C-alpha cells in the first residue's frame, strides 16, 4: 500500500515538473501573441496583463505598413517565401539526384566523392562566409535572389540522408524498369523521386526552415531594403526609434505563424528531422 502511494506521488511530481517546464517554455510564445494585440503601454506593465482589455489589432497593420508607410514587410515576407521555397526545391532535386547516384551506382572514386561530400560537414558556414561573399559578389550575385539561394542549394547532410534512404531501395524494381527500356533519368524521375517522399519532405522542411531563419547570409548579401528577408526586416524594425512594441510583436507573430502551422500539421517530419540528424553515423 505504502509502495503504491509512493509510486503515485512520484508520478504526480513528474507530471508537475514536466507541465511546469512546458508552461515556462511555451510562455514566451504566448507572450508574443498576447503582446501582438496590446497597446504598447500594456506590454511593459507590472504585472503583465496576459489578456488585454483593449484589443489593438491595428498592430498587425502597423507591422505590415512599417514606420515609413511603404509596406516593406509585405515585400520582405514575399522575398522570404521565394528564397526558402526555391532553395527547398533545388535541394530536393540535387540532393536526391546525388544521393541516388551514390547509393545505387558503382563508379570509380565513388567512396572518395562520398568522403569529400561528408567532409564538408566539418566546415562551419561562419568560417567561410567572408570569402564566399567575395566569390558570390564576383559572380555578380550580390543583392539578388540567386545570391541568397545558390550558395545554400546543397549540403552534405541532405545528400547523406537521401543516400541512406535509397540504399535499401529494391534493385529489382530498377532493373525491371531498365529492361522495359526506361532511361536512367526517367527511372530517377518516375520511380526514385515518388518513392522517397518521406525523406524528401523531411529535407524540404529542414531546408525551408533554415532559410526562413537565416540571418547571417542575407545580412552579407542584401543591400537594398526591397531585397530584405524577414529576419533582416525585424532587426531593423526593432532598432528604429519609433517602433511600437505591439507592432514589433505583431511582426514577430507574422513571421512565426507559417512555421507554427507547418509544425502542427507536419510535426512528425520536424521531429524526424531532429532524430535523423542524431543518427548521422556510418
Amino acid at each position, binding site marked *: 500500500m505504502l509502495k503504491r502511494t509512493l509510486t503515485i506521488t512520484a508520478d504526480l511530481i513528474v507530471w508537475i515538473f514536466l507541465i511546469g517546464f512546458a508552461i515556462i517554455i511555451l510562455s514566451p510564445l504566448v507572450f508574443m501573441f498576447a503582446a501582438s494585440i496590446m497597446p504598447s503601454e500594456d506590454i511593459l506593465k507590472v504585472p503583465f496583463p496576459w489578456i488585454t482589455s483593449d484589443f489593438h489589432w491595428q498592430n498587425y497593420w502597423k507591422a505590415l505598413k512599417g514606420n515609413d508607410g511603404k509596406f516593406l514587410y509585405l515585400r520582405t515576407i514575399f522575398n522570404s517565401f521565394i528564397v526558402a521555397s526555391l532553395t527547398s526545391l533545388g535541394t530536393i532535386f540535387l540532393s536526391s539526384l546525388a544521393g541516388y547516384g551514390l547509393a545505387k551506382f558503382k*563508379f570509380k572514386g565513388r567512396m572518395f*566523392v562520398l568522403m569529400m561530400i561528408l567532409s564538408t560537414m566539418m566546415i562551419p558556414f561562419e568560417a567561410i562566409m567572408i*570569402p564566399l*561573399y567575395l566569390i558570390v559578389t564576383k559572380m555578380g550575385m550580390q543583392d539578388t535572389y540567386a545570391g541568397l539561394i545558390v550558395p545554400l542549394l546543397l549540403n552534405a547532410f541532405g545528400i547523406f540522408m537521401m543516400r541512406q534512404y535509397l540504399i535499401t531501395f529494391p534493385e529489382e524494381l530498377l532493373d525491371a524498369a531498365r529492361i522495359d527500356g526506361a532511361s536512367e533519368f526517367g527511372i530517377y524521375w518516375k520511380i526514385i523521386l515518388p518513392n522517397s517522399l518521406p525523406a524528401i519532405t523531411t529535407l524540404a522542411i529542414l531546408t525551408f526552415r533554415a532559410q526562413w531563419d537565416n540571418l547571417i547570409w542575407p545580412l552579407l548579401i542584401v543591400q537594398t531594403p526591397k531585397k530584405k528577408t524577414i529576419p533582416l526586416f525585424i532587426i531593423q524594425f526593432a532598432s528604429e526609434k519609433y517602433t511600437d512594441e505591439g507592432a514589433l510583436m505583431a511582426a514577430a507573430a507574422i513571421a512565426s505563424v507559417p512555421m507554427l502551422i507547418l509544425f502542427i500539421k507536419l510535426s512528425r517530419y520536424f521531429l524526424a528531422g531532429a532524430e535523423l540528424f542524431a543518427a548521422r553515423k556510418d
Partner: protein
Amino acid sequence: MKSLERKKAVWGFIFVLPAIVFFIIFNFYPMGYAFWISFHKKNLISLRPPKFVGFSNYIYLLQSSSFWNSVKATAIFALGTFVPIVIFSLIFAVLISTRKRFQKFLEMAYYSPAVLSSVVAATIWFLMFQPYGLANQFLNFLFNTNNIDYKWLSSEKMLVLATIIVYFWKYVGYYTIIFIAGIASIPKSVHEAAIIDGAGKWQDFLYITLPLLKPTTLLVSIMSMIQTLRTFSTQYFFVQSGAPIKPIEVITLNIYNTAIRDMRVGRASAMSIILLVIIMFFTYIQFKISRTEEISY
C-alpha cells in the same frame, strides 16, 4: 553486359556531378581562399590586389585584446549553454519517455521554440528582458521581492546570461527529441530482462538506460557545443538594439564586424581559419565517437 555496367557507371557519375561542382565552388574554394587570404592584407572594397603579409594577421590577432575578448565570450557562452542543455534535455527526455499519455503533446510543446526563427526568439526575449518586462517580474515573483531590476540588457554579466537563456530556450527541446529517440532505440527486451532479474525502475534507469544512452549523450554534447560556437543571431540582435557589445562579441560577430565594418578581410579570414580549426577538431572527435561507441543489439 559489360557495356551496361559501364553505362550505369557513367550515369551514376552524371547524377553526382552537380553536387561535386557545387561543393568545389561553394565549400572547398572558399575554404582555400580563406586560408590563402589570411596571409594577405586585403581591404573589402578596395580594388588593389591582396598584399602578402605572412603570418602578421595571426600575430596581430594573438596580441589583440579584441580577439581574446571574443575567444572568452565564445567560450563562456558555449560552456554556459551546452552544459545546461545536455543536462536538461536528458532529464526532460527520460521523464517524457516514462509518460504513457500526452507524450506526443509534451514533445511538441518542448520542441516548439526550435520552430521559430532565431531573430524572432531574440525579439521576444528582448522585450521580456526590459526593466519592466516579464523576466524581472518572474524573478520577483519567484523570490518574493519587490520590483528588483536585474539589468538584463545593461549589466555585462546579465547580458551574457540573457543570450544564454535565449539559446537554451530555443534549443533545449530539439536535443530533448534526440534523447527521446535514443531512449526509444533501446530494445524493450533489455529492460524486461533487467526487471525479470529483479531490478526496480530506478535500477533499470541507472544500470540499463543511462549506460546505453552514453553514445547519444556524447553525440548531443559535441553537437550542441559545436552549434553554440557558431552562435550569432541573438548577439547581433541585442547589439543592434543597443546592448553593450563587449561581453557578447562572440567570434562569429567579431569576424563579421572585422570584415564588414572594418573592411579587413585578411584579418577576418585569419579569425575564420582559427574558428574552422577549432570546430573541425571537435567534429573529428564526434566522428570518432560515433564510430567507436556504437552499440549493436
